[in-house]
């Protein structure tokens, strides 16, 4: 994954709140291998004549401006694959589902946190996203955005976590040895109480 600091591209707006990852990619498409491309599954069941991403002026968009709680719900990274494979590099929303945002960063997609109310009516329009300065300009607007500093560094450098973690191999081994000493039962998973897996405890409705 290559890093980036600056992105210019066409932005489209989708004002709805709570666009969950089931909307971003319905579950029935997730058995496909990534190599087949996930772009065509993006927001599949919301598509229609009035859908903002399908408007003539939205073709080639790479910035998505959305409502509160974008990417909530299921941890499916396929939601990010669908966005990335459809050409998106940036999503701007007032808030994101935590797992979605982490998945986005792992695929070079910026989850930029900002109030989008003023921006949405001006779209589609080209926007300029400066990751280093954390600013968005264009469509007659200039606003800042929030991003976790750890994620910002990762996006800018295009870091791969497995490579990075490899440099800490010795510390991990040392930690594992200590953990095994303190809580040996974590490793000892032999099945000793084979009698049953469920307990007949009386209870209340849950």
């Amino acid at each position, binding site marked *: 994954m290559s890093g980036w600091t600056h992105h210019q591209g066409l932005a489209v707006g989708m*004002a*709805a709140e*709570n666009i*969950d990852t*089931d*909307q971003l990619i319905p*579950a*029935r498409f*997730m*058995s496909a291998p990534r190599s087949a491309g996930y772009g065509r599954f993006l927001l599949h*069941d919301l598509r229609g004549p009035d859908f903002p991403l399908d408007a003539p002026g939205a073709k080639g968009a790479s910035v998505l401006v959305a409502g509160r*709680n974008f990417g*909530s*719900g*299921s*941890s499916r*990274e*396929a939601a*990010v694959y669908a966005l990335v494979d459809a050409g998106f590099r940036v999503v701007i929303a007032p*808030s994101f*589902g*935590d*797992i979605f945002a*982490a*998945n986005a960063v*792992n695929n070079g997609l910026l989850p930029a946190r900002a109030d989008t109310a003023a921006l949405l009516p001006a779209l589609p329009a080209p926007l300029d996203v400066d990751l280093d300065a954390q600013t968005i300009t264009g469509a007659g607007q200039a606003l800042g955005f929030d991003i*976790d*500093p*750890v994620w910002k*560094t990762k996006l800018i450098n295009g870091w791969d*976590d*497995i490579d990075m*973690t*490899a440099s*800490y191999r010795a*510390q*991990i081994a040392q*930690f*594992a040895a200590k*953990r095994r000493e303190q*809580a040996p*039962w*974590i*490793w*000892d*998973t032999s*099945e*000793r*109480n*084979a*009698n*049953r*897996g*469920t307990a*007949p*405890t009386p*209870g*209340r*409705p*849950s």
Partner: protein
Amino acid sequence: MRTLFDKLWDAHVVLTREDGASLLWVDRHYVHEGSHHAFAKLDARGLAVAEPALTVGVADHYVPTRRGGGITDPDIARMVATLEGNAARHGVRLFGLDDPRQGIVHVTGPEQGLTLPGMLVVCGDSHTSTHGALGAYGFGIGATEVAHVLATQTVWQKKPARMRLNFHGTAAPGVGAKDMALHWIAALGADGARGHAVEYAGPAVRALSVEGRLTLCNLSIEGGARCGMVAPDQVLFDWLRARPHAPADFDRAAEDWAGLATDAGAEFDREESIDMGLVAPVVTWGTSPEDAAPITATVPDPARAPEGKAARIAQALDYMGLRPGQKLTEVAVDQVFIGSCTNARIEDLRAAAAVLAGRRAKVPGMVSPGSTLVKAQAEGEGLDRVFRDAGLDWVASGCSMCVGMNGDLVPPGRRCASSTNRNFRGRQGPGARTHLMSPAMVAAAAVTGHLADVRPLLRGRA
């Protein structure tokens, strides 16, 4: 002075970088058919699974719930076979389709005693928050992170903020963990606990069975929380002791676990309170878990909604086919579903059966136990007969109609009373209309044919 979450966090930090990112040790990693992306990433790099003994596979997301005659859908057969292949190749234990311990990963893990207090538990599934009910730090991760855990047995995280959610008072009859969860999510919002590790506390939480705590923690993610947890106590230890994979020296382990509680005077970044006097049996009316209301309420009117909410409510009502001001108890349902990692444990089935016993469902429906062991136990108690006699289908265990990946779908435009966790558009199938509620409330909807208050139906029973 530390909170429970601080203790769980501290016990797993391998190192913290200067920028604040911490590398955490993973004690238990669950994988399922949906983990195929992560195994493919591992293969692409030629890497092995770092700790196969700490990795457990369960077939749940795609498995058929009607198992006679094997898997007929080639796509689903391929998903199940891929998991089997990956598990075998990497030496990972698998509770596969034909294993008597198979079930939904968040039911099977705790049930087997493979999740234990003090553990850090991850899985490529957002409902991994469930495991917090055992005093563990459980959270869902994406495929890239799953690959990272497979390769290194660690995960990078930034420490979430700490939040305590206090439930004061006691649950009224007919009110359970599902109602408590939907109540707080409606109060604080579907992103109300975003960025927070939530500890559930207070007398009403303490009074919950382990099953109830699993339900409560399961739904943490629906309020946006990173994870949810309940401090271990004797109720938990009694529940855990006889589990197949409970520690050999249980008492020694339990001594350690007894320290897993928030110290008196420890500070949280945020505290919220729920008055149990206000918690009634809850149903959802919209397309987000935050769209929840007591069954005695009416469908909200966008015209009276606060600014900024009106459009979303109107869109939700349009999708759900509901009228503003309509009584929730007047909403007719087409079918019911009892299942999912949220509400398909033995107590959930008992609660639903207590309502259904001696009654007939007015609509069709399906009951899918949370695990094959739960199914066997329920059959031992005669619960399957109660469901069948009521006219409902009694099927095998899996994620089933909660996510629809195995083909168990609600048809377009149909309305389903469901014991699941997400009422998202299309979650149970394209165009499906989902109302979330407790298993007892699903049973009430089944016998009346509409959303219904379970309390009158419980009179003289249970």
